[in-house]
């Protein structure tokens, strides 16, 4: 997916601009939107600080590609810059940004698979089959092996289930916000979240069950 403007990547770690520095509380959304419309650069900094990483993680979890995730962030914020004057506040700024980011992800997924089906809820409910205990998270060091296992498991979910799991359980959006971003009902969000959790658990169960057997904690 081509980004709209070229990026010169930096390899060093750079510090964020903190909210204190920019002087705008992101919680004061109306003031923030007004400041954005007035082209106040500190307002853009505040929104970027709050949402850039979240949109990036959404892109990574849906696309599994760093460059594509970068483009999702870039194109989402370019859309904000382009359309801020028309922003009417019918949804929160965060919901709007997630929706734009999600739609960019869908466009990318459809390039790979044009027949991508997102609205199917006719997948059967599953019953767990693996009942081995897992180690406590605090006992687990985040090795590359565990990270790979988590990546592998989430990649087995359909994009529809993955999107709900990412928004509800990782980014901790509410059911209402997630429904608004995805354009589906709250009950559909709940059904998909339930299925996503059970499927992920089942995918991960053999690995973590074995870890528990080896360590006994």
């Amino acid at each position, binding site marked *: 997916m081509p980004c709209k403007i070229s990026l010169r990547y930096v390899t060093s770690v750079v510090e964020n601009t903190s909210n204190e520095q920019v002087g705008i509380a992101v919680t004061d959304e109306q003031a923030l939107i007004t400041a954005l419309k007035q*082209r106040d*650069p500190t307002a853009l900094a505040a929104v*970027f600080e709050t949402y850039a990483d979240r949109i990036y993680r959404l892109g990574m979890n849906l696309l599994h590609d760093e460059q594509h995730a970068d483009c999702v962030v870039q194109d989402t914020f370019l859309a904000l810059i382009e359309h801020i004057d028309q922003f009417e506040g019918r949804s929160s700024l965060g919901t709007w940004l997630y929706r734009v980011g999600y739609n960019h992800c869908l466009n990318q997924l459809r390039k790979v698979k044009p027949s991508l089906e997102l609205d199917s809820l006719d997948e059967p409910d599953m*019953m767990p089959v693996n009942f081995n205990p897992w180690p406590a998270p605090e006992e*687990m060091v985040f090795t590359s092996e*565990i990270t790979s296992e988590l990546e592998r498991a989430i990649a087995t979910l359909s994009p529809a289930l993955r999107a709900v799991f990412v928004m509800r359980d990782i980014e901790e959006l509410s059911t209402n916000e997630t429904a608004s971003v995805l354009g589906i009902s709250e009950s559909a969000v709940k059904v998909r979240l339930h299925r996503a959790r059970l499927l992920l658990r089942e995918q991960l169960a053999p690995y973590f069950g074995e870890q528990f057997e080896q360590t006994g904690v």
Partner: protein
Amino acid sequence: MECQDLIKYLSDYIDNRLDEALTRAAQEHLATCANCHVVLDSTQKTILLYRQRDQQNGLTTRHYQSLYDQLAQAFAKKPEGDL
């Protein structure tokens, strides 16, 4: 409550969305069913593991500033009220 009921209500139980009677019934079942207890525990750990993993992920440690600078430039170039 039976195992299949517990699984059906698992997400609502995790999210504290069950009413008092169903919550009590789920707790009673979980106290006596080792398998369902494992399913609940491992589902909660699944959620925690992904949250922990993603706390380490983000644009910030990569090229946050470069991207921000270019967006700020585009933002500055766009006149106020320009549609």
